[in-house]
């Protein structure tokens, strides 16, 4: 009989338990080979068996050494519940099950003197989603007929770039009665109202990043949807920087400035301007934290692109040298505008916060007219890596804050001057079109989405703490890893196809929502067509309460 060692880690301390059926197992070894976390291992158990080989029972005992698969009770190798073992098992002999009695949070910190980290998502699923209490309730009837989603022309585009008030447009009226633009206006592109959010080439595997890039190129060149992707912080392959496809990419600069050495060096060789520049100040899923790329994921090509050794890459929580919004405007915006000769819109991304409206007000009132977009990222967004405590206990939902910013713009008659783009858990239920549409009605010009792309690629994680191991470099789907063996699990062509198909579906669904409210262009700010079944939500967002 074994002594009870209460302070040793046991499998039932861990968040997931591996359930194994020795009778079904053929010992093929697939599960052990497939588990990227090393959470299961083969071992030999001593089995006692009683049997009788006579006509009347004469029990005998035999012992045998039986090979089995077992869960590893090592903290570093805890099971993430990704389910790959179950997927590869030909006999349904193994699966993982959420452990409701997990002591993980306690034992992890007690053992490592550090809080757990994870990637992917915040898992705050216990709360009902605000957007799910909202419906499109103003349906055109009778005197104002609905449009035909199949046959009418719809303008599903959104601006990225600073919009001047009409009084400041540099127009001169010619003798022929025509207005002619006679001066410079800030650069602005009309793009698809859904941007593929900023996931860096370090956070994603090269195949995943390639798949997103292929999908974006295909959507633009073959499908006529001007979808843009944001590079994330970490630069881009030089070959792509010098290609014509650069125009579909919004280059991101964040506090670590990773990758920008190469971008700047590539500038003289660029044949196209990038689609935009996004200055990342903060991120919704882990506000107050900078980017975090664990050493495990800093593979040689990442080192090369970013010009760094293999080490944890921690972007500072703020941009060094920026001490005020005014300074940020003057330094960063001006220098990035100037870098591309005022041809490329420069936008800012901030984490939604109780103070977002102040930041927005400062930018919308800037006299230089060079802030080309306000990207607001809410708590429900994804991340490559973050401390659990940041994910679980910091942040601000995006919906009400987006609405606040829009209404602040309205109060000043400045709506639309800095396009509002919102993100943070949009599309997390699988229907991005509905979420995006509701955000448009609340005042967003567009939305951006990242995590959903991972889902489309086959991410096994979910909002109930399944997997969430993007930070480890051991992504079992090959999406957020730089391990060559794991990356090869991902078929980039299939992923690109999934993304393209999804966008084509979203585009149709947007029309199916625009048609019944009778609008042929995006209903930005049309909160009158929304209703909410939740009184508090209705009051907060200033939409009609219904019951």
């Amino acid at each position, binding site marked *: 009989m074994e002594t009870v060692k209460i302070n040793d880690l046991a499998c039932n301390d861990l968040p997931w338990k591996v359930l194994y059926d020795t009778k079904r197992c053929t010992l093929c070894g697939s599960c052990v080979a497939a588990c990227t976390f090393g959470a299961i291992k083969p071992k030999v158990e001593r089995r006692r068996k009683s049997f009788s080989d006579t006509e009347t029972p004469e029990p005998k005992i035999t012992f045998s050494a039986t090979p089995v698969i077992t869960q590893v009770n090592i903290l570093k190798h805890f099971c993430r519940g990704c389910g790959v073992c179950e997927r590869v098992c030909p006999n349904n002999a193994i699966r993982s099950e959420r452990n409701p009695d997990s002591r993980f949070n306690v034992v992890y910190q007690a053992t490592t003197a550090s809080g757990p980290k994870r990637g992917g998502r915040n898992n705050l699923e216990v709360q009902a989603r605000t957007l799910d209490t909202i419906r499109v309730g103003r349906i055109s009837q009778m005197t104002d007929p609905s449009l035909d989603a199949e046959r009418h022309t719809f303008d599903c585009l959104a601006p990225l770039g600073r919009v001047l008030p009409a009084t400041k447009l540099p127009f001169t009226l010619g003798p022929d009665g025509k207005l002619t633009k006679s001066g410079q206006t800030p650069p602005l592109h009309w793009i698809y109202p859904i941007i593929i959010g900023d996931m860096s080439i370090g956070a994603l595997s090269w195949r995943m990043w390639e798949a997103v890039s292929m999908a974006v190129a295909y959507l633009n060149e073959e499908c006529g949807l001007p979808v843009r992707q944001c590079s994330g912080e970490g630069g881009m392959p030089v070959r792509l920087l010098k290609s014509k496809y650069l125009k579909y990419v919004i280059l991101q600069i964040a506090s670590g400035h990773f990758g920008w050495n190469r971008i700047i060096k590539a500038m003289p060789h660029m044949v196209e301007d990038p689609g935009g520049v996004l200055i990342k100040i903060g991120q919704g899923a882990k506000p107050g934290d900078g980017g975090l790329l664990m050493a495990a994921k800093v593979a040689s090509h990442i080192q090369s692109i970013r010009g760094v050794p293999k080490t944890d890459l921690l972007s500072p929580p703020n941009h060094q040298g920026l001490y005020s919004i005014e300074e940020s405007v003057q330094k960063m915006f001006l220098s990035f505008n100037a870098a591309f000769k005022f041809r490329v819109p420069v936008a800012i991304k901030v984490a939604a916060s109780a103070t977002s409206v102040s930041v927005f007000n400062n930018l919308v009132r800037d006299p230089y007219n060079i802030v080309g977009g306000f990207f607001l990222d809410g708590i429900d967004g994804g991340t490559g890596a973050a401390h659990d405590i940041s994910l679980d206990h910091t942040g601000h939902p995006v919906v009400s804050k987006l609405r606040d910013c829009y209404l602040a713009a309205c109060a000043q008659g400045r709506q639309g001057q800095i396009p509002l783009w919102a993100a943070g858990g949009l599309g997390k239920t699988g229907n991005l079109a509905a979420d995006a549409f509701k955000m448009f009605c609340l005042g967003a010009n567009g939305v951006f989405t990242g995590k959903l792309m991972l889902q489309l690629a086959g991410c096994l994680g979910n909002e109930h703490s399944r997997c969430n191991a993007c930070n480890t470099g051991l992504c079992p789907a090959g999406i957020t890893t730089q391990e060559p063996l794991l990356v090869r699990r991902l078929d980039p062509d299939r992923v690109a196809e999934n993304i393209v198909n999804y966008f084509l579906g979203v585009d149709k669904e947007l029309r199916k929502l625009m048609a019944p409210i009778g*609008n042929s262009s995006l209903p930005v700010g049309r909160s009158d067509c929304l209703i909410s079944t939740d009184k508090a939500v209705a009051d907060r967002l200033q939409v009609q309460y219904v019951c």
Partner: protein
Amino acid sequence: MCRIGAIKSLNYVHPSKALQLMNSQQKGHDNSGFAMVMQDLGGIFADYKQFPTLSLACTDEGLKIAEAILDALGFRQVFQWLPETSWKPGMDIKKMPNYVFRTFDYPEQCKSLPQREREELLTSTRLRIRAALEKDETGFAYSFWPDVITLKEIGDPRDIGTFFGLWEPDDSFTARTITAQCRQNTNYAIVRYAAHPFFLQGYVTLTNGENTFYQKNKEFQSTLHPGYIGFESDSQCFLYTMHYMHRQLGWPLQYYKHIITPLPFEEVVKRDDREELLAIRQSLAHLEINGPNTIIGTLPDFTMWVVCDAKKLRPIVVGHTRDTVVFSSEVCGINEILPERDWEADIYPNEREIVVVDNNLEVQRWKQ
């Protein structure tokens, strides 16, 4: 559904023509009111074209309030027209105690001001009167502008015509430009201000239809100009957009269509003026409308125009003779007052057109 009509003529026309124009279309509307704006006035107003006329419906108390405001500012009355009203039991009209059509000379200190500043004074005065009368609903100030008269009332348009004696044509009360509509607002509360046509600083619009971008338009316009108030009807937005574009921005009429119903992106990018059109669309995205509607309007110089929504049309016909052009929701209205015209020359404006009639009655069709 509303029916709207407008008459523009080389000759002075009595409002009975407008009543006839609308009466033949009565099955298409609910006969819940009558509203009319007369511009380029003849008859008894012909000698006072340069002086502003106040169009006001009010109680005795309201009249005192309005008079006090005008007195205090130094406006001096030079003429007034008192409509001879005749009320009989059974008439469907929610009449007001007083209908005031008074013409004023400008305050002495303002006579040397540039015209634009005098115009601003007229607008601010009307807005002051309107605000003062709103408190206890003591009256409704519709227009205060040279060469313009506005009449609005709730009830059956035939009874309203009889009440004001408008059915019998004469030479004393006439205009070269008349816009009219026979329905009160049915989308929102019944308020006299909500009845088309709407007037602001010489600009008039009246609409058959709806504006599904009402909230966006309203939120944007609210901060643009002190005269952009009320919003009792979603159609007021069309007037304010025209006023903002034409008067405030100084852009030509043809750009109105590019603001309210911009061309699809795929068409814009093929055009030579794409940079200008995209800039307009970007800057005035919140003035875009989404129909269905047809809008008739006039400019301060009495140019008359009509546009339709780009997707969901409401009917409109333009018929003309040598001396008169008539806009009407239904062709039967034109048949009534221009039976001898060449019917084949009638214009049915399409979704990308502005039809414009100048003071020489030259009819132009501008493609967006």
